[in-house]
């Protein structure tokens, strides 16, 4: 094994180097880890990476899906035709990316648009899955922006599914761990771009540094503007701090048209409330109650039965029952005691 560390990839199109290179992603590159409040600071800052999906160039061939299955060695179920080109019908723990097809008739022009979007993990800068995850280190974010699931640490609770603003993670019903697009972190770590980008025949999927991808997107948007797509825009939603998978949307003012791509995604306030105040206020309240009980027991007298109470009880019982032999009162199961 060479001592040389693989350089971070700047494109998906180049072929891999021949020499063996050490992976460039390690624990020192983790900037966020689930359920880990005292994460050691990263040892270096990697350049931010991004995948850019230019919807105007996509022809819906699904080469990306095939490449994803191939590289990740997943085995999606063989589907059935349900009247759409979407196949399989949804993302799954065996299908990390999915071409979603939507037919849209523009009310102004009457034109039919066939909108195709490659769905999958957006690799949020502020990942909702990671926020929701209760298992330390089961979801990590690297300083290059990749959000990855560490399957060994996943406990299968599905909290990440509720945390994600994009409805991406899927639970394996047999392995009981969640799965999603890794942005090919295993390929990136040895200097290669994601498999989907590598396979895309029209370069609709490109990969590189986030700065390069934004610059490339701007060129594409200028081009689209010149061809009548006045609202063409880059999709890099600020509500989740930006994403490391971005889209060029020809109809950029209506992202929902693209099979429900959220216009302003952010981590749900309900999830924030659950993971924030409920946890801190709740644990503080429990702590205070426990301490309060201990202090009360130390500084106040307990409520003790007095001799007087016992005498009163004897009198009351005697008044009602008259002098009764204890043995008479006892039922068979109490005989031993009486």
């Amino acid at each position: 094994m060479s001592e040389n560390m693989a350089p971070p990839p700047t494109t998906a199109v180049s072929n891999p180097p021949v020499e063996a290179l050490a992976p460039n992603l390690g624990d020192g590159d983790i900037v966020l880890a689930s359920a880990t409040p005292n994460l050691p600071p990263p040892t270096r800052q990697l350049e931010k990476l991004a995948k850019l999906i230019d919807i105007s160039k996509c022809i819906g061939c699904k080469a990306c899906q095939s490449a994803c299955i191939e590289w990740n060695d997943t085995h999606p179920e063989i589907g059935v035709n349900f009247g759409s080109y979407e196949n399989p019908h949804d993302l799954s723990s065996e299908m990390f990316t999915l071409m979603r097809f939507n037919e849209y008739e523009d009310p102004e022009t009457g034109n039919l648009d066939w909108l195709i979007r490659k769905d999958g993990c957006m690799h949020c800068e502020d990942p909702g899955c990671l926020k929701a995850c209760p298992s330390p280190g089961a979801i990590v974010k690297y300083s290059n922006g990749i959000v990855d699931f560490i399957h060994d640490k996943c406990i299968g609770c599905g909290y990440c599914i509720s945390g994600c603003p994009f409805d991406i993670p899927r639970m394996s019903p047999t392995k009981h761990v969640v799965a999603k697009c890794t942005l090919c972190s295993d390929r990136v770590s040895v200097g290669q771009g994601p498999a989907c980008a590598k396979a895309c025949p029209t370069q609709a999927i490109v990969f590189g540094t986030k700065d390069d991808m934004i610059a490339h997107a701007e060129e594409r948007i200028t081009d689209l503007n010149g061809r009548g797509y006045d609202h063409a825009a880059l999709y890099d939603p600020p509500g989740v701090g930006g994403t490391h998978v971005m889209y060029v949307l020809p109809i950029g003012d209506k992202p929902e048209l693209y099979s429900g791509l959220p216009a302003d995604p952010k981590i749900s306030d309900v999830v924030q409330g659950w993971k924030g105040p409920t946890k801190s206020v709740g644990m503080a309240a429990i702590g205070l109650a426990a301490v309060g009980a201990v202090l009360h027991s130390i500084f106040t007298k307990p409520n003790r039965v007095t001799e007087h109470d016992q005498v009163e009880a004897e009198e009351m019982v005697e008044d009602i029952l008259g002098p009764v032999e204890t043995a008479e009162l006892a039922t068979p199961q109490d005989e031993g005691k009486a």
Partner: protein
Amino acid sequence: MADREYSESSDRIIATEPVEVRRYAAHTRINHWFTAILIILLILSGFALFWPRLFFLTGIFGGGQNARFLHPIFGVVACLSFLLLFLQLWKLNLMRREDVVWASKITDLLAGHEERLPELGKYNLGQKLVFWGMFWLLLTMVASGLMIWQQFFPDLVSIPVRRWALLVHSIAAVLSVLVIIVHVYAAIWTRGTISAMTSGNVTGGWAWRHHRKWLREVARRQDSPPAE
């Protein structure tokens, strides 16, 4: 048999010198402790998944995957067990007029002047609130718990509903722990209480001091001819 307003049929005087009263039948006690053990397991496994610093508690159950698998099963069993307990206890836990008076004089109780409080049946307002509190909280937790039970009910509700279920489940869990702290501490602070759930019996003095109407009724019932 005399009418029962404040006592269960199994409550009775089992000794007179000194007076001792049966408060909980064996099946009720077993039911109580079975529920208690399950709730302790639920707290350990649940709070491990709620607070990262307590995640190590999953080790008790054999790791995170096992804790995640077992928690909802404990929950369902605990709720069924509580249901049995509920069926035995709900009637005497219904609110009564004297509970309001009792509550208005709660400071006298804490100051050690229990004689200034009204005579009570088998339960005081605090005990009733613990009972109904656990009832509603467990109901909330089992309902919200089903919605977030990934392994068996992954598609029961939509993701936005599931987020609310997670929030509600965690708040109910925190509240139920507070109720349990009150329950356990009140049992300790009021000396002589715990034996009601261990041997099943309390002293006559305890019954006279805290639940006089109950003691009187139990004695009167015993005075009347045997049921057979």
